[in-house]
């Protein structure tokens, strides 16, 4: 009897231990699954029309001119086609736009960073930007060469947000525990975030140049890690309907997806009316976007917008 019960108990213990082992191994897989479905990132929205209309005419004018956006475009010589297109198209709508290049190029002016590493480029670009422009601009937008941005929609989005607060906005993605803004969709930092970033960049323990232990982390993730140390967290930007306004794909790619997933409501389900960025565009597409966004329109549809933005001077494609 005793030997039987003891063998029973032994059996139970072994069974339990085996099960625990199997579950733990499985949990690592399951854990990733739950984390991917986790919906923890912060959402941040464009202002409501009522928010804006409550302001007086004078206040609106003040706001209109007080939101100044500085654009950083990270480029390399191999991106010359996209560089030229960005220069001739959307970047003209930034209050100031500068191209930060891995190395000097004869054809165009740029800020030469003398490195090919994307993370080092990003660090240097932000550092230089903070040093030179911290008193001149309240918002800083960083883009990659294939990104197209509609600065007016960015300004509207930022309208009622206080730049002395730590904002870090864009197309937010979660990877394991880390929430970061996908560089492809463009990265927006308020002056406060940039200030905190520039100080943590000096700390090689929290924010080293050689990030990642074994393999390299992408620069947009590195940025998120550094910012996290300073208490700045990524937020996903959305319009009043919950649609993303920073897009990491082109309009064409998003339309194709919409045609496949909801063919009865292609345009409606695709993209926001107030979209700020699209990415993965060819230089030709950028020129088409200029026409499609800033010129082509249906006669007889008017909007009572609370802000007014003038077209840039000396330009013929917008």
């Amino acid at each position, binding site marked *: 009897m005793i030997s*039987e019960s003891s063998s029973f108990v032994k059996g139970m213990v072994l069974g339990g231990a085996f*099960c625990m082992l199997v579950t733990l191994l499985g949990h690592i897989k*399951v854990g990733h699954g739950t984390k991917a479905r986790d919906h923890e990132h912060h959402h941040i929205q464009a202002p409501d029309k009522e928010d804006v209309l409550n302001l007086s005419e004078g206040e609106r004018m003040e706001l209109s001119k007080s939101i100044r956006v500085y654009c950083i475009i990270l480029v390399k010589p191999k991106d010359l086609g996209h560089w030229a297109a960005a220069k001739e198209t959307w970047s003209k709508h930034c209050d100031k736009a500068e191209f930060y290049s891995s190395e000097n190029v004869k054809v165009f002016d740029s800020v030469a960073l003398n490195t090919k590493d994307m993370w080092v480029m990003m660090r240097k670009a932000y550092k230089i930007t903070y040093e030179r422009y911290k008193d001149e601009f309240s918002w800083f937008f960083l883009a990659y060469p294939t990104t197209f941005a509609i600065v007016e929609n960015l300004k509207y989005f930022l309208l009622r947000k206080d730049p002395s607060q730590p*904002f870090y906005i864009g197309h937010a993605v979660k990877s394991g525990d880390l929430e970061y803004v996908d560089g492809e969709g463009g990265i927006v930092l308020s002056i406060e975030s940039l200030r905190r970033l520039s100080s943590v960049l000096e700390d090689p323990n929290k924010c080293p140049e050689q990030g990642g232990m074994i393999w390299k982390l992408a620069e947009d993730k590195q940025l998120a890690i550094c910012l996290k140390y300073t208490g700045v967290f990524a937020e996903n930007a959305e319009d009043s309907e919950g649609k993303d306004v920073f897009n990491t794909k082109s309009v064409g790619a998003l*339309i194709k997806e919409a045609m496949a997933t909801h063919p*009865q409501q292609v345009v409606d389900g695709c993209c926001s009316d107030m979209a700020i960025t699209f990415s993965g565009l060819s230089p030709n597409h950028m020129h088409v976007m200029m026409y499609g966004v800033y010129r082509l329109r*249906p006669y007889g549809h008017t909007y009572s917008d609370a802000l007014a*933005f003038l077209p840039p001077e000396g330009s013929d494609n917008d």
Partner: protein
Amino acid sequence: MASSKSLMNLLTFTFGSAIGFFICYLLFSIILEEQVKIQPHVLHNDPHGQHSADIDNNQLQGQMNFNADAGQHKDEDKNIAEGLYQKVKILCWVMTGPQNLEKKAKHVKATWAQRCNKVLFMSSEENKDFPTVGLETKEGRDQLYWKTIKAFQYVYDHYFDDADWFMKADDDTYVILDNLRWLLSKYSPEQPIYFGRRFKPYVKQGYMSGGAGYVLSKEALKRFVAAFKTNKCSHSSSIEDLALGKCMEIINVEAGDSRDTSGRETFHPFVPEHHLIRGYLPKTFWYWNYNYYPAVEGPGCCSDLAVSFHYVDSMTMYHLEYLIYHLRPYGYLYRYNPDLSKNPEEQSKNEVLEDNQKLKQKISER
């Protein structure tokens, strides 16, 4: 006795391990389910965040509902466009065929066709479901002119009183009806006139490109239909647009100038990219010799208030629909404002412009 005892032991051992495994599994599955149920973290104290409601994908219901996106357009004032819709009645007929209904015509129907006062899809055979009108012809490029004649005849017979203007388009043409109405509002439907992308060869007054679409006034349609009854125009031709253009000249229907008030073309025989990108169309291409007015490439190619584009595939139909009717730059004051000197509403825009100029000056002076 001993062997049966050890067998018993083995059995109880196995049984025990099964029980142990089972209990442990139950425990773990309960624990893991708890984890999955954790709600998204709503930040109540976040000074600059509000948790938006989950996007409900409840839009997969049926036909395209143009009012579905009313939320994003609540700032939009369509009074002028709606006024023109009532004033300038346009019947559109789209040249298609049985093999293209699903591939092409369907996307026309889902996008711009709804904005015509009346739209008809013309095919060689009738299709009650789509629906298409059956012209009882064959299909093929050489049948195009015959299909065109029969289509206009059908429109004349059934819908002549229902519209002022009659627009022909292909199933790979994208038409911006609001801009077409603006163009036509300056003319009377009683005038014998037609508009499109004007080409110069072969016909003295020029003729209109078939693919870019063309629109006949009421009077022009009347004369066109009559011309075949009286044999003024011939029935056989393999080049639809040229043949129609020749007929128009014979019956004294004027080939109109469809360019905007800045002289920019409104009807386009290609997609925007082909016109906007310098050097896209090689200089040896037929197009450069065909255009009635000096052809322009680059931003000057195309009016802000363009009416049509051609060779538009299904994806580009939706792309254009999005760029034209949805995506816009908030608060942007367009450079081209054809009504500026006339409209009293535009006066305040002028004031805003002046204000902004002053502000910009102030900023630059700082």
